[in-house]
C-alpha cells in the first residue's frame, strides 16, 4: 500500500512537471549551474515607486481609451460579409476576370503578389535579409563578445549532447526528413496552381533543415550548408528578383513581355516569370529560417 501511494505521488509530480522523479535511476548527470545574478535588489527609492504607479495608471488609461475608440469605429464600419462592401470595387473585378489571361496563374492571390504587386514582395524579401543580417550582427561569435564562463558551460553541455544522441529523434528524423523536403519543394513549385506559394514552401523547407540540425548535430549540416552557401543563395536570389522586376520603373511602369511563354493554365511550367520568382522567394525564406535557428543556438551558420 505504501509503495502504491509513493508511485502515484511520483506520477502526479511527474505530470505536473515538478521533477523527473518517475524513474529515478535513469537520471542524467547534473550540468553546471547557471551563473548567479549580479545585483542584489533592495527596496526601491521613493521616486521610483511614484514613477512606477503613475506609469501603470497612465498605461491603463491609454489602452482603455484606444480600445473604446476602436470599438466605436468598428460600430460605424460597414457590416462584415455583405456583398456591397466599398472595398469590393473594379480592382477586384480586373484581378479575378483578367487574372488568368494576363498572368497565367490559376491561384489569383499568387498571381497578384508576384505579378501585379510584385514590388511588395521585393520589399518583404529585403526585410527578411535585413532581419537575418541584424541578428547575425548581434549574435555571431567572435573574439570580442565571448564570455569565458558561458563558453565553459556550453562546452560541457556539447560534450554531454554528443554522447547521448537521442535515438527516438534520430529514427524519426530519418523517416520524416525526405517527406518534409519533398513536400516543401512541392508547395513551392505548385504556388501558382494551388494554395501555398513561396513563403509557405520556404518555411516548410527551413523547418525540415532545423529538424535535421537538431537531430544529427551541427557538424553534419555544415558539410552541405555553410556560410558560403548561405551567402551565395541569399544574395543571388534577392538580386535576381530585383533585376527581373524593377526594370519596369525605368520603362514607365509598363510591363515588357518577357520571352517566357505563358503556357497552358493548369500545367506546372506555365505562367511565365511567376515560376522563377516563386523559387527565388522560397530560397530566401528557407535560408533565413535556418539561419535564425543556427545563429541563436550555435553562434555560427
Amino acid at each position: 500500500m505504501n509503495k502504491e501511494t509513493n508511485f502515484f505521488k511520483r506520477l502526479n509530480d511527474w505530470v505536473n512537471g515538478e521533477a523527473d522523479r518517475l524513474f529515478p535511476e535513469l537520471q542524467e548527470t547534473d550540468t553546471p549551474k547557471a551563473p548567479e545574478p549580479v545585483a542584489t535588489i533592495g527596496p526601491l527609492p521613493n521616486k521610483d515607486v511614484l514613477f512606477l504607479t503613475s506609469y501603470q495608471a497612465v498605461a491603463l488609461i491609454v489602452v482603455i481609451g484606444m480600445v473604446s475608440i476602436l470599438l466605436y469605429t468598428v460600430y460605424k464600419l460597414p457590416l462584415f460579409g455583405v456583398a456591397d462592401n466599398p472595398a469590393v470595387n473594379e480592382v477586384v473585378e480586373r484581378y479575378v476576370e483578367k487574372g488568368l489571361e494576363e498572368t497565367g496563374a490559376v491561384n489569383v492571390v499568387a498571381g497578384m503578389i508576384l505579378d501585379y504587386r510584385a514590388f511588395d514582395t521585393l520589399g518583404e524579401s529585403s526585410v527578411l535579409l535585413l532581419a537575418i543580417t541584424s541578428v547575425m550582427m548581434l549574435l555571431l561569435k567572435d573574439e570580442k563578445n565571448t564570455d569565458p564562463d558561458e563558453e565553459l558551460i556550453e562546452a560541457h553541455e556539447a560534450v554531454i549532447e554528443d554522447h547521448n544522441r537521442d535515438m527516438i529523434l534520430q529514427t524519426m528524423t530519418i523517416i520524416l526528413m525526405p517527406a518534409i523536403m519533398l513536400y516543401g519543394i512541392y508547395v513551392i513549385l505548385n504556388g501558382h496552381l494551388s494554395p501555398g506559394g513561396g513563403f509557405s514552401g520556404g518555411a516548410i523547407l527551413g523547418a525540415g533543415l532545423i529538424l535535421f540540425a537538431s537531430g544529427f548535430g551541427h557538424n553534419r549540416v555544415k558539410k552541405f550548408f555553410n556560410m558560403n552557401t548561405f551567402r551565395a543563395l541569399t544574395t543571388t536570389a534577392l538580386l535576381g528578383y530585383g533585376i527581373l522586376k524593377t526594370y519596369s520603373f525605368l520603362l514607365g511602369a509598363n510591363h515588357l513581355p518577357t520571352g517566357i511563354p505563358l503556357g497552358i493554365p493548369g500545367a506546372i511550367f506555365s505562367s511565365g516569370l511567376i515560376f522563377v520568382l516563386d523559387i527565388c522567394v522560397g530560397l530566401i525564406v528557407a535560408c533565413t529560417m535556418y539561419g535564425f535557428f543556427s545563429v541563436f543556438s550555435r553562434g555560427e551558420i
Partner: protein
Amino acid sequence: MKNFFAELINDRFMIAAVLLFGLGFMNLLLQKNLIKKIIGFNVMDSSIFLFLASQGYINGRIAPIITNGVFDAEVYINPIPSGLVLTGIVVSVSVTAFFLALTVRLYGIYKTVDFDEIMLLINKEAE
C-alpha cells in the same frame, strides 16, 4: 436590443480583433518579464492580421482559386486583403527574431530578464 445583439454576432471577428489588440498592447506595456512582452507583441500583430483578413470575406463565396473555368468575380471572395496579410506574417516573425536576439544580449550583460531590475542596474551604473 435584439438588433444590437444581431449586429454584435455579425461583427464577431472585428470585435474579437480589437479586444485582442487591447489585451496584447496592455501586456506589452505592463508586464515585467521581457519574454512575456514579446508574446504580447506577437498577439497584437496576429489580431491586426485577423482584422484585415476578415474585411475580404463575403458570405457564401469560395476561395479565390479559379476552378472549372468560371471567371465571374461574383463567385470568389476579395483576394486583395489576403495578399497584404501574407507579407505581414513574415515581417512579424522577422521582428520577433530581432527582439529575441536583443533579449539574449541583454541577459548576457545584466544576467536578468526582469525589466525593473534592468532599469535599476542602469541607474546604478549611471551614478
